[in-house]
């Protein structure tokens, strides 16, 4: 490593630095990974010739070694005046000069290899999509120095340091959260498919054995006990997998606000840190999964422009938090969001109650006549599925039992769906399987669409859909089966012209002079 800078304030210019030598190892392992498919093909097409495998392996290792060491040698970075300059590339040389005041986030993470050597990876992000520069391995001390160097320069024009307490996940919450994660259903379906494959194999295997003993071969796997056992096994294995992934992903979770940025750290094996400037938050989602809602817990996610944790994904602001603490959490971390509307949402509304206007927000819910719209589609679909299953499978009519949970969810959806309009922020609540509450600031609404099908028109109902920007392009949040007048009021709430004219209750008409003459 190069010499450390003199203590005190960082110098204006500094000598070019290299990454920690582990960077060579990391880049080597990365390029080795690219050879895996090639080697696999070699093994599959020529399984008998070991020499081919060894040959390929040797070439892959040699190439990766050269590339790894070469790219490490070529990689230089330094902070010059108000820029971070990165020079890199083994075969193709690239230079990136990133103005410090353009840097929006410095994310620090560490995978297993990195942690073994006590180094971290730094990703520098600007407003442009994706990572602008990546320092794949620097010592932790160097990371702190860089963060401070790049941070202080930015802070000069910013407000003085502010910092909130760090919200961490307790061990109890981590375990509870991991055991109730929604990941279960996804993994379950994956294993369900595997199981249906495996079933045939087991069946054939058992039949062969039975024939050997001289018993009458019948389809063992079709017996009820066998099916029940299979389903049970499936559940247990899926749950274990989902439990472990969640545990590894969210172990050591913590979130803290500092200088207008949210710092999220997480990960048991691979430590990740994600930085999201609060002013980039486009929408907040509170998701109460089927398993979590009875416990009173939810996950809080943020949509941000260009700062998705992974492309096309929302970032967890908090993976598992009690619903009573959400208001506190949000008002501490993002006080820019006026939570009147969220508070006004009824916690457990009685069915068919009149709209309640609480705390300065207007709350709207689907009218009682909308209930059938919530029930119709899922019930008809279930009946169709039952019909198909009954004709194809011996006990297919059992699928009809799904009717009960399906109707229950439809009825819950009708009861829970709501829109609350505050002065600056709308809270939308709807349910598919899980219950979702979206918080969207009026100034973040990119467009709003009111739609009405022929059936809805007859019942005087409408669907309202609000679009927000997000890392993956756009997010649309729609609330279905509101009274047509309520939906129109929501549309109007989003209109800037309604804001400039005084009360939100009076219909705002734009002056004719402003209209475009076509």
């Amino acid at each position, binding site marked *: 490593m190069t010499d450390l800078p003199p203590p005190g304030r960082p110098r204006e210019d500094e000598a070019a630095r290299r990454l920690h030598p582990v960077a060579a190892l990391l880049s080597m392992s990365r390029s080795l990974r690219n050879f895996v498919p090639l080697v696999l093909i070699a093994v599959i097409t020529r399984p008998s010739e070991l020499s081919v495998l060894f040959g390929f392996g040797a070439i892959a290792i040699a190439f990766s070694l050269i590339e790894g060491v070469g790219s490490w040698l070529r990689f230089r970075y330094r902070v010059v005046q108000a820029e971070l300059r990165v020079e890199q590339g083994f075969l193709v040389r690239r230079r990136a000069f990133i103005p410090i005041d353009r840097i929006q986030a410095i994310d620090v993470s560490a995978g297993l290899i990195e942690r073994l050597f006590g180094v971290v990876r730094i990703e520098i992000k600007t407003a442009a999509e994706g990572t602008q520069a990546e320092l794949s391995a620097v010592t932790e001390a160097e990371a702190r120095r860089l963060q401070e160097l790049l941070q202080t320069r930015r802070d000069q024009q910013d407000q003085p340091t502010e910092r909130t307490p760090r919200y961490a996940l307790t061990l109890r919450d981590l375990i509870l959260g991991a055991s109730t994660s929604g990941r279960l259903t996804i993994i379950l379906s994956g294993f369900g498919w595997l199981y249906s494959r495996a079933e045939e194999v087991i069946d054939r295997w058992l039949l062969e054995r039975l024939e050997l003993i001289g018993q009458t071969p019948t389809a063992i796997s079709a017996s009820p006990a066998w099916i029940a056992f299979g389903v049970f096994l499936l559940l247990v294995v899926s749950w274990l997998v989902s439990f472990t992934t969640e545990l590894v992903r969210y172990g050591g979770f913590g979130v803290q606000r500092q200088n207008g940025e949210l710092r999220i750290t997480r990960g048991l094996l691979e430590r990740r840190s994600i930085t999201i400037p609060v002013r980039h938050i486009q929408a907040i989602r509170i998701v109460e999964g089927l398993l979590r809602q009875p416990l009173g817990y939810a996950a809080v996610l943020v949509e941000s422009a260009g700062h998705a944790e992974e492309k096309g994904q929302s970032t967890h602001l908090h993976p598992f938090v009690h619903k009573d603490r959400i208001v506190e959490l949000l008002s501490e971390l993002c006080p820019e969001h006026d939570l009147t509307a969220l508070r006004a949402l009824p916690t457990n509304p009685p069915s068919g109650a009149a709209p309640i206007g609480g705390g300065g927000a207007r709350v709207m819910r689907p009218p009682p006549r909308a209930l059938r719209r919530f029930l119709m589609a899922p019930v008809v679909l279930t009946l169709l599925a039952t019909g198909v299953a009954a004709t194809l499978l011996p006990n297919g009519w059992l699928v009809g039992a799904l009717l009960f949970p399906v109707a229950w969810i439809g009825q819950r959806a009708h009861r829970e769906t709501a829109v609350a309009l505050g002065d600056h922020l709308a809270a939308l609540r709807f349910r598919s399987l899980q219950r979702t509450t979206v918080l969207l600031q009026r100034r973040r609404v990119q467009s709003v669409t009111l739609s*009405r099908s022929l059936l809805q028109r007859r019942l005087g109902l409408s669907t309202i859909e609000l679009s927000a920007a997000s890392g993956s392009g756009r997010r649309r949040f729609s609330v279905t089966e509101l009274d047509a007048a309520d939906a129109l009021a929501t549309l109007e709430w989003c209109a800037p012209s309604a804001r400039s004219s005084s009360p939100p209750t009076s219909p705002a008409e*734009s002056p004719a002079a402003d209209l475009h003459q076509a």
Partner: protein
Amino acid sequence: MRPAPRHPLDPRAVSFWRLQGLVRTALLGAFGALSLAGAIVMSPAGPLFLLALVACVGLYGLFALLIAPAWRYRVWRYDVSEHELELQHGLFVVSRTLIPLVRVQHVDTRQGPLLKYFSLSTVTVSTAAGTHEIPALSDEVADQLRDHISALAQRARESL
């Protein structure tokens, strides 16, 4: 209550959609004929397939040429005010979209070969969350509208 948007599209939109419907029906027919040729070779029930194909393409053509264009034209409305753009369109599901002009990133006009034949243009309005279209306006109106929206959006952004 807020009034519905007022301005209709250019009346030539109906002819444009008809032509578009004709092209689509022809494509559908061609594709169907190809797969039918395959089916006749493969199976003895060829005539039945032919009947089904003619019925499907016929129904689609009927809808795309005779019913949809005038219907679509009747529903389509747009309106621009100082602060927002409003669109209304749809056949079975009528939707009404409001776009705050502050959120508009850029405005373009576009013209495909079919639109060009009718001297019509489409105005597209992009926000950070997707693109909205006002199809089939006469070229002059489209150009005017594009500049108008763009100027209003500029002003709305500046007044922030």
